[in-house]
């Protein structure tokens, strides 16, 4: 850890800067307006902070790692071990997420709350729900990453696909813009895609925009997406095993 001290502190600063940048951007957009897209300026600030907090946890580079394993052939070594490759990758992502949340995001959050007027809920139940929800965010996002990574089995180079996925997830999950700000038809479409379950739903619950029984509905949507994405991964993995062409000998 000491060897990477600079890395570590800059990691914290990067999170603080990201939140700060979005804070100022939204402040400029709001101007004198009280409310936009159903968000008050205060809620928006909190939403930005919370969505970054969630992102710290759910974000990982599993797609890149899997596709690298496939392209350089080291997936072969992984297959000689008595474990499920995908499970191991998911767990690795979980470890990274936990690390980033506790060691980057938590201190970054402290810095940010000192500078910006962010109101975090004090209700412990809400915190519990939030933790469960970002756990699902992590699962769904990782599932999407695993699928993107596994595409390397089927195409020679999935670099383009990975970039597209990254932008898509950031944009459509609600980190960049909350889904309520999208035009009516677009937010309607997005309700039927898994991305909103990654950031928008937990963010909305935590900022209090979704409350009461709707919270359970949001949780249910997440759980449903998690379950729905299991089958395609299993199918892809099976097809991949048959196709597996270990590159480089």
């Amino acid at each position, binding site marked *: 850890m000491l060897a990477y001290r600079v890395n570590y502190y800059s990691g914290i600063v990067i999170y603080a800067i990201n939140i700060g940048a979005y804070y100022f951007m939204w402040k400029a957009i709001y101007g004198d307006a009280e409310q936009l897209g159903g968000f008050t300026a205060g809620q928006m600030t909190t939403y930005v902070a919370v969505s970054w907090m969630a992102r710290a946890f759910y974000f990982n580079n599993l797609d890149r790692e899997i596709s690298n394993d496939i392209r350089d052939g080291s997936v072969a070594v992984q297959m000689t*071990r008595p474990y499920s490759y995908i499970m191991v990758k998911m767990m690795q992502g979980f470890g990274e997420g936990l690390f980033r949340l506790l060691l980057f995001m938590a201190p970054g959050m402290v810095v940010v709350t000192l500078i910006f007027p962010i109101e975090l809920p004090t209700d412990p139940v809400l915190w519990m729900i939030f933790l469960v929800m970002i756990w699902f965010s992590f699962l769904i996002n990782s599932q999407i990453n695993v699928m993107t990574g596994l595409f390397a089995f089927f195409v020679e180079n999935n670099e383009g696909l990975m970039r597209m996925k990254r932008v898509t997830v950031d944009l459509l999950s609600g980190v960049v813009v909350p889904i309520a700000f999208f035009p009516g038809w677009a937010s309607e479409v997005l309700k039927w895609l898994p991305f909103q379950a990654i950031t928008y739903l937990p963010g909305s619950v935590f900022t209090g925009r979704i409350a009461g029984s709707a919270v359970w509905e949001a949780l249910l949507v997440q759980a449903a997406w998690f379950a729905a994405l299991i089958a395609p991964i299993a199918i892809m993995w099976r097809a991949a095993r048959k196709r597996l062409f270990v590159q480089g000998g």
Partner: protein
Amino acid sequence: MLAIEVERLRKQFKVQKNREGLKGALLDLFKREYTEVTAVKDISFQIPQGEICGYIGENGAGKSTTIKMLTGILVPTSGKILVNGYVPYKDRETFVQGIGVVFGQRSQLWWDIGVIESFRLLRKVYRVDERDFKRRLDELVETLQLGDLLNRPVRKLSLGQRMRCELVAALLHNPSILFLDEPTIGLDIVVKTEIREFLKRLNREHGTTILLTTHDLQDIEALCSRVIMLDDGNIIYDGSLEELKSRWSKGREVQFQFSDPVSLQALSALTAGQGVRWTKENEMTAKVWIPREMNVSDVLSRVVGAMEISDIKIFETNTDEIVREIYRTGGSEKTAEAENGEALPAMAGADSRD
């Protein structure tokens, strides 16, 4: 009991064809064309427990593909595989508990952490009991002399050091079969010898079945009781190294340096009736070719008794040459003969070129 049983094993790959030029590239965007490549063509063999078997062949002959099917990495297109009583690709997670795999060109250790940390991780992965792990590790570390390497990160090891660590990593869970894919590639002669000694000892003391692919025939000579030779996806030879040598070897050549000028007729007369062949290098030097089944001493005694000799050299066709010859002539047309177990007429014909 059989450790490995393979029957009519086949693996086909679809390889993407890239069409030429801009037009081709555009066409490829919409409709891909594939060619089917058969890397392994219905091979069958059996390896009993406790055998060390060498698996050789040219690059692209299908060795690695076979190893990858045997270790459960690849799913075969057709055919039957049974390793340690398991179908590798089906029960992969249980199956791999009983095998160890070393790929000479890939590391299974974690690049950034100390070697011992990698070993501890592998202990957890294979669920090896702490006490067994300790005992096994001590034994391996001692025989491979790794003592002072254990705390170094893998990226700071030399290739030879890393290779020895790879072996330990593959053996920590005490597998009954060890697969080695080019384990001595790029190693210096000292490390090669160490690794060979270690493998022999492992086989002797633990009865570990070993299947190794290699391009270094000295590995085979030092280790293997049996050789399987592959060419273009087919097995062209399966048997002992001795037999391989005697079947394909062209005999020996002895070069004499005489004190006085000699003539071919005089030499031929000396060895009349022995079926040997003389060639003259220069005034004082001549070479005699002796068929494999004949003793060199029979020829020597006749020559030594009659002539004054200042120097003698014996050339044995070594395995490298034999194998090169087999690869070069393309073993495939000889498959039939090899399977009949007869001497090869084609080779015999080439030999008697007088």
